[in-house]
């Protein structure tokens, strides 16, 4: 089984639109995993029918039993996250380390797990999708990403499908690392802007750090030809293959509004994505 993660560093470069189109082209041959769990959008195009839902429990959090608390203040002093005020734990600040429970002489602190989201297995017109919902503002998105990926792997194995296609989140931190670990290829979507250029270098460095193969897709490649050239030479220097070059075109937003993948609606971007898909097939 092969796993491809689509990532970007910078947000809004077109990861999800691209994944939806690759899914349309891979139809029936892959499992799709939306690992951008705090801003998931792939389902808006794939329009899943949920088959199975699982609860996701995030971090444990402290609660103080007022009837047992002697107001000694030890917990407040020991807490590194400034999460205890007036002998009450602030759930938004608590990181669940348990130091308060450790230092409490009156056994007044309990650590409890709470429901932080859901992970789903769904059917879509392109094949099975594993996706998730993290409740607004919750922590542990990396842990939920790991859960989604595990479910996708098991599902692919049971359905005898040999590709897992992952829609990643922007950035280079916890959820991105969880999306990248152990994949066969990281497809980095970039665009010719000075910000995306800068972010491309950072995400390539992170992929290198974890020893992951990379390929790049230059989206909106005609927006700034000079910057596109710089990206091409950067990729050449770093021995990163260019998987595709997509033009800047209104068909992408139009497809999104109608809930379709770009390749379902046609146009110049659709053609370029089809070419890229053949390239990726050869690579794997």
């Amino acid at each position, binding site marked *: 089984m092969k796993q491809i993660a689509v990532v970007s560093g910078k947000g809004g470069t077109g990861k999800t639109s691209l994944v939806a189109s690759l899914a349309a082209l891979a139809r029936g041959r892959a499992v799709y995993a939306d690992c951008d769990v705090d*801003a998931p959008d792939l389902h808006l195009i794939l329009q899943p029918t949920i088959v199975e839902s699982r609860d996701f429990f995030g971090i444990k959090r402290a609660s103080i039993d007022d009837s047992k608390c002697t107001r000694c203040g030890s917990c407040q002093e020991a807490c*590194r996250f400034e999460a205890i005020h007036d002998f009450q734990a602030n759930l*938004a600040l608590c990181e669940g380390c348990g130091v308060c429970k*450790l230092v409490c002489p009156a056994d007044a602190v309990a650590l409890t797990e709470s429901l932080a989201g859901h992970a789903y297995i769904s059917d879509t017109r392109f094949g099975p999708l594993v996706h998730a919902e993290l409740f607004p503002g919750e922590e542990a998105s990396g842990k939920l990403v790991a859960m989604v990926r595990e479910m996708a792997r098991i599902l692919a194995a049971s359905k005898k499908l040999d590709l897992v296609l992952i829609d990643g*989140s922007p*950035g280079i931190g916890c959820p991105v690392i969880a999306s990248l670990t152990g994949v066969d290829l990281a497809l980095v979507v970039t665009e*010719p802007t000075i910000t995306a250029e800068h972010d491309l270098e950072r995400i390539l460095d992170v992929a290198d750090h974890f020893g992951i193969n990379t390929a790049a897709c230059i989206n909106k490649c005609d927006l700034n030809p000079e910057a596109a050239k710089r990206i091409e030479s950067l990729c050449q220097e770093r021995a990163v293959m260019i998987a595709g070059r997509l033009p800047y075109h209104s068909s992408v937003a139009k497809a999104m*509004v109608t809930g379709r993948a770009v390749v379902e609606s046609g146009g110049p971007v659709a053609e370029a994505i089809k070419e890229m898909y053949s390239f990726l097939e050869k690579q794997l």
Partner: protein
Amino acid sequence: MKISIASGKGGTGKTLVATSMAVSLASPEASVTIADCDVEEPNSYLFFPDRTLLERKKFHVPVPVIDEKKCTHCGKCSEVCAYHALAVLPQTVLLFPELCHGCGACTIICPEKAVSEGSRSVGEIFRARSNDLEIIWGELALGEARTTPLIKAVKNDAWGKMVIVDCPPGTSCSLVESVRGTDFCLLVTEPTPFGLYDLDIAIKVLEKMNIPRGVLVNKSGIGDRKVYEYLEKKNIPMLMEIPHDRKIAELYSQGEIFAEKMPEWKAEFVGMVHEIEEMIS
């Protein structure tokens, strides 16, 4: 006053708005600071190529140091660690520093007093000046997972009468830490299904945190009308619209601040900030 610029979805124009807002407000008296809290991919400073770097410092977090001479390998530190950052083997203790939250539980629990605290660098903080603006940003070290301590440090280091906090995308802990303590959050969205879906999650986070909020619709004309219907239904003020214009996208791609190149927009940004000031006073 602190105004945070957030979005949910990435690439809607947070940095475009933060930089344009900053140059529109800048004057010697205004003392405006941009605090770039997108420590995974900080970009604001790229728009100020003439900046002078004032300060660059490593940012450290606490991490346990095990005294192998005192350690009896009893395993209590590993048991108490909520983050699985310590593994005790018969002969040694393994530390996985990227997983450590620096809570100090291992130090407290060790019966042999074999765990002390050291520190390790997880990134850097930079401070620069460009004309009347100060720009401060954090840069997370490669391979590091936890963003929140560095975000907090960047915010703590930002002073000035007006602090504009450029937030990371997403709706989880990095966003929560970035907007915490700000007086108002301006959400930048685009009128597309993706923009709307993620905006709604971000709004829910702000409602939970009780932070006053408003919306700026960027790239207006690109998608549909659903964002506008949503804002009306939820009674959320729409403070500005920036049209979907290839010229603006090209200026951004070249690293130009669009309110500098299209100065008619400066008054719009100043007006919006006055409106925000009135809303929260």
